């Protein structure tokens, strides 16, 4: 029996020739991602245990993002703890404010993600990096502490589910619509403990940014990881972004690898999708909810705050006026600068949008765009749980940047194809 790409990566990381789904392995970690909410507790745990070392200051990447710039005194204290620790241990890749950005947009952009590697991070959307043919998964603070100190973590090798993306995406339909359709079909625990492996011709028409939107939301189906194989598009992105360490190993799934299920999607038949409250699995074609009045449109986050997302939004908003509060949150400083240089900020400003500093901010109900009781937000983010972006009686509708931009113009959920 052959192995999946996920099994091959974990076998290498565990120093074994083969592993199979269900095996428990101690894997060597290539990159540990650290941010301002989950790493300060990890630092404190290590200090309390008298563990003062880090396994490798060049394999830990630190960026404050959730509450940055600090939203209040308590979050400023979290940043201070992170800063003191990162400096003390001479963490090589420490992105301070000014360079800091939403972690899952920042790490690939700054060249920290390589195929064949094992990446963990104290954030559930760490599964994003699987777009680069890597194994990556979200962990909590204790695992982050253990990874920081030892460079190893135990894993149960996940069984894989195959998602075949056939056809070509239609006009006004994007990778966000694909992943919302996938989760709508299998449910928020449809891939619990599994690796979601995405294959198929539709991927060859997607950029790395678009692919990251898909793997980013694997956790919303309960998955341990999401993964996409290596191709020329991956290579080109890596050629442009990898800096210090440019070598990597490319694994691919064997033709006789075992999958517990295979799901086929005809992407050419997909409509723009909107996930209704209060689960990411609530996706319906936009036509089923068009016309519903919104109070806010939010375009940003680790799911859809990259330059391509902002270009799509700008194309729709150019020369128009927004009817509701509209927030534009470039996910990293580089994306912010490119947006400015390309004139996107002028378009957003003229349309009446607010342009924010890079932050996770309101995506998780932190700050910078919180919803009041009864308010509704169309959002390019990843979760629409009760209270996710503010008051427990507010509602979040998940959609693509195109749908969020079109809805901003009308103040109602709107099919973006009307504006393209």
């Amino acid at each position: 029996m052959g192995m999946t790409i996920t099994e091959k990566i974990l076998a290498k990381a565990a120093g074994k020739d083969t592993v199979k789904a269900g095996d428990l392995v101690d894997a060597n970690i290539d990159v540990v991602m650290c941010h301002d909410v989950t790493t300060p507790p990890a630092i404190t745990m290590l200090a309390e245990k008298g563990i003062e070392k880090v396994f490798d200051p060049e394999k830990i990447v630190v960026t404050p993002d959730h509450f940055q710039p600090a939203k209040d005194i308590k979050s400023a204290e979290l940043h201070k703890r992170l800063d003191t620790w990162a400096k003390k241990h001479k963490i090589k890749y420490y992105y301070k404010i000014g360079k800091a950005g939403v972690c899952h947009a920042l790490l690939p952009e700054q060249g920290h993600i390589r195929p064949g590697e094992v990446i963990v991070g104290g954030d559930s959307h760490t599964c994003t990096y699987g777009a680069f043919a890597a194994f990556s998964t979200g962990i909590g603070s204790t695992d982050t502490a253990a990874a920081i100190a030892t460079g190893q973590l135990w894993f149960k090798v996940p069984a894989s589910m195959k998602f075949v993306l056939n056809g070509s995406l239609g006009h006004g339909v994007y990778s966000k619509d694909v992943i919302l359709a996938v989760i709508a079909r299998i449910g928020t625990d449809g891939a619990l403990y599994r690796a979601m492996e995405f294959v198929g011709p539709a991927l060859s028409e997607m950029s790395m940014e678009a692919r990251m939107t898909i793997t980013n939301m694997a956790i919303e189906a309960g998955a341990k990881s999401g993964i996409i194989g290596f191709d020329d598009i991956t290579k080109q992105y890596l050629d442009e972004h990898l800096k210090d360490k440019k070598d990597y190993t490319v694994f691919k799934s064997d033709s006789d690898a075992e999958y517990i299920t295979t799901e086929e999607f005809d992407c050419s038949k997909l409509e723009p999708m909107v996930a209704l409250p209060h689960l990411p699995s609530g996706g319906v074609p936009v036509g089923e909810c068009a016309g519903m009045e919104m109070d806010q449109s939010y375009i940003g986050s680790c799911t859809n705050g990259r330059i391509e997302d902002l270009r799509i939004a700008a194309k729709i908003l150019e020369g128009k006026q927004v009817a509701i509060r509209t927030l534009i949150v470039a996910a990293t400083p580089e994306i912010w600068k490119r947006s400015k240089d390309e004139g996107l900020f002028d378009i957003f400003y003229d349309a009446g949008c607010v342009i924010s500093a890079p932050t996770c901010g309101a995506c998780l109900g932190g700050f910078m765009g919180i919803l009041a009781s009864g308010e509704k937000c169309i959002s390019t983010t990843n979760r629409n749980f009760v209270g996710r972006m503010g008051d427990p009686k507010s509602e979040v509708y998940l959609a693509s940047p195109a749908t969020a931009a079109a809805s901003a113009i009308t103040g109602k959920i709107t099919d973006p194809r009307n504006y393209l």
Partner: protein
Amino acid sequence: MSKAHVYKRDHINTDEIIPARYLNTDNEKELAAHCMEDLDNDFVKKVQPDDCIVAGDDFGCGSSREHAVWALRGAGVKTVIAKTFARIFYRNAINNGFYLIESDDALGKIKDGDELDIDFKSGLIKNTTSGIDITFNPLPDFALDIINDGGLLEHITKKG
């Protein structure tokens, strides 16, 4: 003896267990004061030390915030009994030495307010209110090893 707080819900997520607006602290007592706030505003008033939560599928889905485990533990919750658990929450619980029980039957056989006597090692819940016994598969050995050592960091310190 544990009193059961039953939520006939699937997908109780970490945003409901501890909303992100409180994640500017990792102090267990402060987190505990807001435990389950967006799901049941009265939870922290009702819960007593050693009580347990009973729920449906996919408990703890969403964010990787370990604060969810700390908020539950800080509020006095001894264990969560659910049909299934989301994986990061499951891992975080074990890493903190916090027991979880997976049971298909519990939700149907335990009512809100029932008193439970739980034996984690043998895998038995005695519902002393109804007189019904519920068996469950104890956590796997590797997880029990971590819990018995007091959590993951204690476990790896012990291993050297």
